[in-house]
């Protein structure tokens, strides 16, 4: 396997694999079609601790190392990318707290999540996608509180979270440098969950608008200092990108596995299509690209673990893995032919799931801007 893990790390990945195959796989198609939120499946994942892999042990989390965590997200994604994304997004909300939070804030956040709850990272707005600096949500200081007003969209876990990490402007005149990050508990007054997105893929994850109307939070919920928000957001996304890459790799790997299985069984012209070089070369290219994508993910994680700069490599991993997932899913549909086009077979879903990995967590165009930026500085 592409992740070089020791026996103990492997035993965790194997455990998750068994869980996904027996408990989640039989239900995926049904939830993909209806779009209903698979709460029971997520509850089972919570029981196993799959929602707090990255929360440090001292705060009650798994404290799993990043490489094993990536292998786990990939393993989950082989069964369903949406399910893996829903759980990974909790860690996305966690990251600003780990990056800039005090011990009390880490405890506050962990105490909500660890017993079994979702968290959501709230940056994107209708007018602030790639242009994250155009965030219009405001946070106004009032005594020892802040009052938050604004609307976020395309928020993963928006409708199911018990805690949000919200990026709001504390000083419009400073643009990017006026953004600030806050922990906002769902229990605060004034939070409404808006429209749920009817998505093309990753339908086992929940994506909604979240609206904040005069939401009061204690000033102690501010992460870092006023004006640190943009830096925290960018560091968070850098740190999260390899894991998103791992999920995309999982989608691609599933596409390969389905294609291999089908090619061996499908007989045309008197033999299995796996015996034709056209199919063999296609499968080989799919495998080469997927393994290469996996290794860009592994490399980015190794840089993180070695405490070296990793922003460029994280962007490469996310960008390449997302592009590979789409291409390999398309190839899988082609190999399955007419059956690949049918919803009765699992590969068309893989393309619908793969596409988002070129869009969220920083579009692949933004990733290219980052990579070019490193080259041209």
């Amino acid at each position, binding site marked *: 396997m592409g992740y070089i893990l020791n026996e*103990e790390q492997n*035993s*965790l990945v194997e*455990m998750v694999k068994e869980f996904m195959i027996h408990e989640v796989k039989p239900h995926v198609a049904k939830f993909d079609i209806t779009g209903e939120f698979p709460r029971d499946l997520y509850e089972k994942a919570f*029981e*196993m*601790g*799959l929602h707090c892999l990255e929360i440090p042990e001292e705060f009650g989390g*798994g404290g*799993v190392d990043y490489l094993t965590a990536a292998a786990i997200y990939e393993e989950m994604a082989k069964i369903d990318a949406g399910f893996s994304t829903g759980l990974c997004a909790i860690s996305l909300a966690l990251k600003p707290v780990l990056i800039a939070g005090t011990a009390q804030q880490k405890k506050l956040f962990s105490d909500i999540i660890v017993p079994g709850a979702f968290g959501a990272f709230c940056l994107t707005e209708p007018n602030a996608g790639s242009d994250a600096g155009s965030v219009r949500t405001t946070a106004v200081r009032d005594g020892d509180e802040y009052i938050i007003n604004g609307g976020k969209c395309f928020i993963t876990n928006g409708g199911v979270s018990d805690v949000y990490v919200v990026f709001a402007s504390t000083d419009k005149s400073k643009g990017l440098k006026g953004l600030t990050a806050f922990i906002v508990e769902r229990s605060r007054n004034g939070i409404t969950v808006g429209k749920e997105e009817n998505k093309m893929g990753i339908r086992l994850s929940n994506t909604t608008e979240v609206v904040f109307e005069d939401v009061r939070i204690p000033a102690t919920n501010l992460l870092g200092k006023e004006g640190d928000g943009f830096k925290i957001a960018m560091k968070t996304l850098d740190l999260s990108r390899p894991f998103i890459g791992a999920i995309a790799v999982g989608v691609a790997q599933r596409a390969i596995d389905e294609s291999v299985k089908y090619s061996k069984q499908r007989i045309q012209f008197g033999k299995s299509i796996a015996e034709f070089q056209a199919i063999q070369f296609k499968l080989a290219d799919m495998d080469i690209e997927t393994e290469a994508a996996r290794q860009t993910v592994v490399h980015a994680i190794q840089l993180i673990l070695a405490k070296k700069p990793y922003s460029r490599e994280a962007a490469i991993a996310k960008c390449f893995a997302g592009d590979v997932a789409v291409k390999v899913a398309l190839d899988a549909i082609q190999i399955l032919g007419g059956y690949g086009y049918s919803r009765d077979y699992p590969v068309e879903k893989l393309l619908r799931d793969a596409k988002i990995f070129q869009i969220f967590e920083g579009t692949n165009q933004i990733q290219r801007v980052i990579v070019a930026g490193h080259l041209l500085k």
Partner: protein
Amino acid sequence: MNILVCVKQVPDTTEIKIDPITNTLIRAGVPSILNPFDAYALELAIRIKETNGGSVTVLTMGPDQAKSALKECLSAGADKAILVSDRAFGGSDTLATSYILSTTIKAIENKTERFDLILCGKQAIDGDTGQVGPEIAEHLGYAQVTYAADITVDGENLRVKRENEDHYEIIETQIPAVITVIKTAYELRYATIKSKMAANKVQIPTMTSIDLVIDLERTGLKGSPTKVKKTFIPQLKKSGIKIKEETVRESVLKLISLLSDATLI
């Protein structure tokens, strides 16, 4: 309730392939698993502990590699694990194995306290003899109930739902007892990330013949009155009844009468 579950690490016999030339099992490369019936026994033990308090210890006789099966048991919820292993024990048949396990149980009880309940899976999927559990009961002089589908505890009494071919019995017995467990309605629970990581860190103690009061003549090949001489696949004979009466209707009526005689319908 102080519970002991005897477990065995076995090759995954669903993955076993037969060498087409020698007609024997190819053991190489076959993954090792916790014997499925032992997993059911462990789940029952953990449930009894959750309802009645106490602790669950798992014991296995095997090579060092068997520790991974013990770790799986720990991660699912067993409190303690012990491996008993010695070169002298290699090649033991069921009688020698049950003797070794019984002396180990007595040695453990000498240091800690008596086990109230000893559970075993009904049979190991490699040997399929189903003998070791009942033999342990005999060595220890305990009551035994086999083929248990469920167990309830009432003070010192155990009520065991015992499976027969076409009915269940409820058998009452008192602790201490040995009970062998079939495939129950309770699958072994999943481990969690935390329990697996904790189990991975545990140093599992190994007991050897030095730690036991044991007659080595009764262990290993020396102590095994039964020996496996040969393992082979029998020739497949065609079986089944052909029903072909004068008319389709008559054939159907004949089939119905055969099925009803066999109490299948």
